[in-house]
């Protein structure tokens, strides 16, 4: 402060020369222009000045008397200088030189230095402001550990907490930000980057402004320069991504103040959460209803598609603006609408559709890597959706294609329907519907990818071909065939997938309705009859038609022959028959395998819950089919057997004998089939029954195989196998293993003990090191005790056990001590007052003077005396009882010691009533004391009795007192009465207050302070002395009487 004063003085001292200044300023301004070649520096200086408002204010305050304008120029002039000084010393020297060159005085330089110092101080102060000092109790946020980093909420809070720092950071180096943005994997940096996204406006704008919405789309595009901001979002759905991007883009687009932007971002982030919930809901809904699922998946797929479509648009077509499409992708509904719109537009214009389909195809193929996860999840459903799409398209196409398709179908139909045997063969299959669509399975099985490809390629091809056809209706039969095939393939794929995904056949049948409807539309023949299960002639027709179609597809060589069929019908028929048989066998086999799978699935689900309506359904379906299969042989035995033998599967071989031998048992079998088929049913039913009975015992826990010994036994048993004769039961258990267990436990205990010791040692070291009381050892002991905790209520005293001696009472020893010890104690207590006698004379003189001169002071003294008396009273509480008895005896002419013992009691006893009286007039103590002047002497005398214990006061009037004591009981009582008053005077307050002495004393009177026996002893001792004294006095009195009489 002194320095400051000096400086200020100097500054003030400058004021006169300042008048010369204008010149200087001009010079300086010139210099400024020359020196500060960089206007930026100048600007910086100004900026600095703006920043350093306090400094300016200081200067301003210093210039209180002077021209403000001048001062302003001053500050303006200093501004740049300061600005230069701070960054580098060179400039400072330069600026100094500037001043030097002006031949300025030392004062100027001093001033500069001072300013610099001030500035530095200012900087330091600023830093101090930045530097936060926290107490020990500063709690680090719970999310201080790594895991907590990812939470978005905390992120938002934190980054909003330190905007200043961030700003600093941002302005510091922009490259870092870029690098940060490029490496968003590091959570901290990512957060920073996030906060910086908005703060560093220019960079972001650079990045984001050119970035089309398409690129800002969450989709990670390898080629795109700007990486997705949050890679974690990849897992999230596209909706989120788009929304988020919107939010962020809007935030960056505004490029306003950082915090505002950030808040906007945060707001958008919150919206993301909402969308997530929406997504979940959607997913639930999807799971609820299949169709909805399809729609959703469609939406998600097409979302991806549209997302990328928007990406691709600028590159591929450039027709549609990216923005509206991006908007489209916001909500699933919108997307759906967009897709539907696309579809509708497909219908409207083939040209557009072609393009869009291309796009879609691209998107689908592109979306493969990105959406693997979701694909895995919704694969089947999505396929269904795709198929649905295809169906739609096909439906559109069909209208145009029906003519060609019908042609072909009819061709196939005629070919197949003419073949009666084939149709019969078909009819033998238990399920009229399944096989035809299953028939495609071998064809479409190879891989799902293949199916997809066909899915995608199919429509495209057809579209292309269609577009070609639109010009010219007449086209090659091959292309027609392809067209015909495509939808069929898709349908069959759908059917297959449904088989795989949905185990319930009810669903399957539902599924099949759609294809069948399509096929019906294709073939223009009602298949509903077939669906109903009737095996009339319509069924073979339909199935045969389908099968022939399949034949066409599967066997390429059959296509052309089928066209030429009219000429070589007979040969072909045989071939076809054979082929169909083969196919039928294959189908059957596959069906068997699938049914087995279903059975296992159903059984497993049954295991989980006995209710398992699903599983039962499956079982009954399969049974139904088998029932049919069984019934068929009853009707027509031979053919079925042939086919079954041909198929050479396990089931027919099982069915065959059963149907042959135990037809009556079929109903029973029907129930048992589930179990028997599940395990391939190698056993007979009777065995089954037995085993069922055995099962209960078989799967019971066998106690003899428990534990280690049991393991040994188990091994032995396994050596013998399941031989009944060598069955190991509990008799073979070895008991000697128990000895091992304690050993193990002991070793464990050893280890624990070692660890415990180690811990103790460590804690000891710690204690010695830190000089703190580490109580953990005790706690550990306590813990050990807790481990051995026993319920006391359960505890029973057992006199035979030595431990229980702790529960026994030991009462003899204290009694033995009692007589001697108590006497000693008593003696000690009695001796105490004796010791005090020595001090007697010294204090007495002073006190006498004091008492004589001032009454108030007397009272004070009395108060003191009374207090001390109290202390003594407490000491001798033990003897209260005895004293009471003594009182009753009313022989008060005993030794002074005893009297002194009694008198306090008297005082205390009477204290309450007297206190009571006195407290009423307690307000004016002085009056009372004046009134009782006369009594004061007596009071003092009376008060001697209690003071006797106290050496100081007792002596004061000991002679008088002794006289009084000798005077007799009457005097004593009077004195007692007298003592009451001063004692009462001290108790100024009638009502009880907290920690009132009376409250403490009162209860004690009702309690026996010493033991009854002790009291009796003392009493007996005293009685003898009393009796003696009494007799003595009696004698004396008699003598006196006699003497008086004589006289």
């Amino acid at each position: 402060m002194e320095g400051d004063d000096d400086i200020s003085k100097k500054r003030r001292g400058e004021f006169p020369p300042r008048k010369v200044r204008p010149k200087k300023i001009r010079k300086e301004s010139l210099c400024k222009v020359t020196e500060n070649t960089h206007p930026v520096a100048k600007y910086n200086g100004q900026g600095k000045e703006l920043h350093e408002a306090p400094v300016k204010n200081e200067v301003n305050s210093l210039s209180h008397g002077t021209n403000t304008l001048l001062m302003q120029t001053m500050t303006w002039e200093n501004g740049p200088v300061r600005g230069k000084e701070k960054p580098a010393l060179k400039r400072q020297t330069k600026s100094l030189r500037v001043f030097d060159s002006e031949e300025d005085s030392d004062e100027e330089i001093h001033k500069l230095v001072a300013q610099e110092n001030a500035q530095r101080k200012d900087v330091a102060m600023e830093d101090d402001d930045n530097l936060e000092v926290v107490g020990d109790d500063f709690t680090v946020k719970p999310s201080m550990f790594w895991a907590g980093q990812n939470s978005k909420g905390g992120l938002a809070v934190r980054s909003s907490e330190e905007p200043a720092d961030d700003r600093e950071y941002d302005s510091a180096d922009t490259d870092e930000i870029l690098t940060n943005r490029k490496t968003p994997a590091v959570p901290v940096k990512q957060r920073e980057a996030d906060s910086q996204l908005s703060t560093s406006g220019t960079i972001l704008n650079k990045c984001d402004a050119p970035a089309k919405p398409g690129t800002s789309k969450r989709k990670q595009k390898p080629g795109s320069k700007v990486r997705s901001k949050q890679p974690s979002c990849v897992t999230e759905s596209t909706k989120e991504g788009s929304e988020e991007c919107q939010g962020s883009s809007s935030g960056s687009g505004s490029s306003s103040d950082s915090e505002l932007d950030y808040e906007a971002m945060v707001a958008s982030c919150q919206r993301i959460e909402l969308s997530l919930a929406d997504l979940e809901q959607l997913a639930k809904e999807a799971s609820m209803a299949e169709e909805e699922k399809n729609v959703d998946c469609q939406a998600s797929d097409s979302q991806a598609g549209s997302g990328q479509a928007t990406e691709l648009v600028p590159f591929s077509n450039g027709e549609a603006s990216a923005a509206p499409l991006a908007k489209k992708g916001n909500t699933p509904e919108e997307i759906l609408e967009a897709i539907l719109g696309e579809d509708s537009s497909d219908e409207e214009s083939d040209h557009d559709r072609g393009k869009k389909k291309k796009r879609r195809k691209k998107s689908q193929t592109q979306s493969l890597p990105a959406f693997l996860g979701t694909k895995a999840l919704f694969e089947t459903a999505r396929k269904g959706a795709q198929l649905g799409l295809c169906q739609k398209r096909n439906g559109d196409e069909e209208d145009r294609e029906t003519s060609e398709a019908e042609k072909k179908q009819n061709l196939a139909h005629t070919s197949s329907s003419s073949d009666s045997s084939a149709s019969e063969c078909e009819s033998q299959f238990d399920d009229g519907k399944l096989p035809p669509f299953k028939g495609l399975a071998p064809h479409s099985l190879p891989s799902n990818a293949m199916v997809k490809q066909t899915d995608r390629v199919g429509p495209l091809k057809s579209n292309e071909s269609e577009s070609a056809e639109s010009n010219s209706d007449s086209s090659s039969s091959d292309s027609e065939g392809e067209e015909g095939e495509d939808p069929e393939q898709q349908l069959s794929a759908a059917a297959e997938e449904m088989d795989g995904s949905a185990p319930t056949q009810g669903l399957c049948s539902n599924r099949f309705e759609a294809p069948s409807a399509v096929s019906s539309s294709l073939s223009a023949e009602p298949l509903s009859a077939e669906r109903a299960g009737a095996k009339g002639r319509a069924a073979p027709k339909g199935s045969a038609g389908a099968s022939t179609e399949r034949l066409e597809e599967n066997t390429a060589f059959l296509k052309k022959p089928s066209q030429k069929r009219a000429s070589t019908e007979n040969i072909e028929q045989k071939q076809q028959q054979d082929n169909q048989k083969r196919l039928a066998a294959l189908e059957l086999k596959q069906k068997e395998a699938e049914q087995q799978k279903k059975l296992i699935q159903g059984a497993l689900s049954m295991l989980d819950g006995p209710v398992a309506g699903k599983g039962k359904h499956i079982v009954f379906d399969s049974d139904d089919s088998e029932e049919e299969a069984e019934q068929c042989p009853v009707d027509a035995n031979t053919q079925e057997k042939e086919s079954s033998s041909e198929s050479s599967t396990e089931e027919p071989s099982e069915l065959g004998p059963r149907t042959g031998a135990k037809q009556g048992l079929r109903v029973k079998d029907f129930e048992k089939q589930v179990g028997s088929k599940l395990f391939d049913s190698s056993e007979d039913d009777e065995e089954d029954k037995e085993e069922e009975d055995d099962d209960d015992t078989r799967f019971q826990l066998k106690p003899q195989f428990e534990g280690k010994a049991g393991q040994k036994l188990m091994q032995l048993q396994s050596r013998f196998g399941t031989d009944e004769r060598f069955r190991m039961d509990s008799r073979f258990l070895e008991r000697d293993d128990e000895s091992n267990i304690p050993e193990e436990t002991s070793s464990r205990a050893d280890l624990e003990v070692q660890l415990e010791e180690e811990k103790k040692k460590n804690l000891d070291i710690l204690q010695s090191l830190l000089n703190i009381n580490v109580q953990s050892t005790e706690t550990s002991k306590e813990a050990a005790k807790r481990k051995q905790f026993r319920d006391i209520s359960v505890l029973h005293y057992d006199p035979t056990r030595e431990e229980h001696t702790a529960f026994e009472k030991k009462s003899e020893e204290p009694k033995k001590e009692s007589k001697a010890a108590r006497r000693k104690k008593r003696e000690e207590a009695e001796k105490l007052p004796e010791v005090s006698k020595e001090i007697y004379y010294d204090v007495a003189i002073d006190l006498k003077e004091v008492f004589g001169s001032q009454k108030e002071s007397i009272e004070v003294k009395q108060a003191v005396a009374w207090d001390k008396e109290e202390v003594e009273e407490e000491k001798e509480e033990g003897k209260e009882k005895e004293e009471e008895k003594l009182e009753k005896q009313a022989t008060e002419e005993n030794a002074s010691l005893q009297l002194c013992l009694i008198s306090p009691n008297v005082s205390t006893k009477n204290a309450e009533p007297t206190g009571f009286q006195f407290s009423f007039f307690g307000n004016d103590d002085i009056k009372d004391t004046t009134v009782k002047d006369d009594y004061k002497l007596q009071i003092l005398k009376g008060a001697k009795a209690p003071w006797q214990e106290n050496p100081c006061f007792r002596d004061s009037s000991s002679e008088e007192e002794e006289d009084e004591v000798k005077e007799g009981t009457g005097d004593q009582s009077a004195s007692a009465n007298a003592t009451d008053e001063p004692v009462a005077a001290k108790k100024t307050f009638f009502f009880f207050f907290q920690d009132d002495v009376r409250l403490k004393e009162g209860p004690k009177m009702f309690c026996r302070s010493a033991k009854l026996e002790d009291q009796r002893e003392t009493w007996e001792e005293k009685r003898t002395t009393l009796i003696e004294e009494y007799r003595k006095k009696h004698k004396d009195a008699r003598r006196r009487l006699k003497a008086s009489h004589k006289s």
Partner: protein
Amino acid sequence: MRPLTEDETKTMFEKLSKYIGENIKLLVDRPDGTYCFRLHNDRVYYISEKILKLATNISRDKLVSVGTCFGKFTKTQKFRLHITALDFLAPYAKFKVWVKPGAEQSFVYGNHVLKAGLGRITENTAQYQGVVVYSMADVPLGFGVAAKSTQECRRVDPISIVVFHQADIGEYIRSEDTLT
């Protein structure tokens, strides 16, 4: 693998107490189980009893690491804390230093903390007191030794060192081969 000798324990505790003070007791005497310190290849590992039992099945020469490595004894029998101990030091640290976002990188690269990078500091931090270094987002970054007391930190110029670097999480990458 063996328990620490008394001297070793003392040395280690002295070092640890610079950072967490009497909170060592919480490490030694844990309510959730028995934990102990074991020396293996001059390194001190903090192991739970369970793991210790399991580790006895592995021969000494094959055992690379068990539990959490707290640090190692140098050839001169001094103890040097490793960054791996941070997880146990951070929650119990008595004196903390927070570095500004701009200085985080510098610290994590193994540099001392300068005054300019000091964002926050626990009051009453003495000179040469062991401190745990946090980022402003309360992420523990490492630990160091206070070069200046809190009061001094207020005064010193921005380029002076306030915390001497001891260990930082960057070591997980820099000295990946030696950390166990």
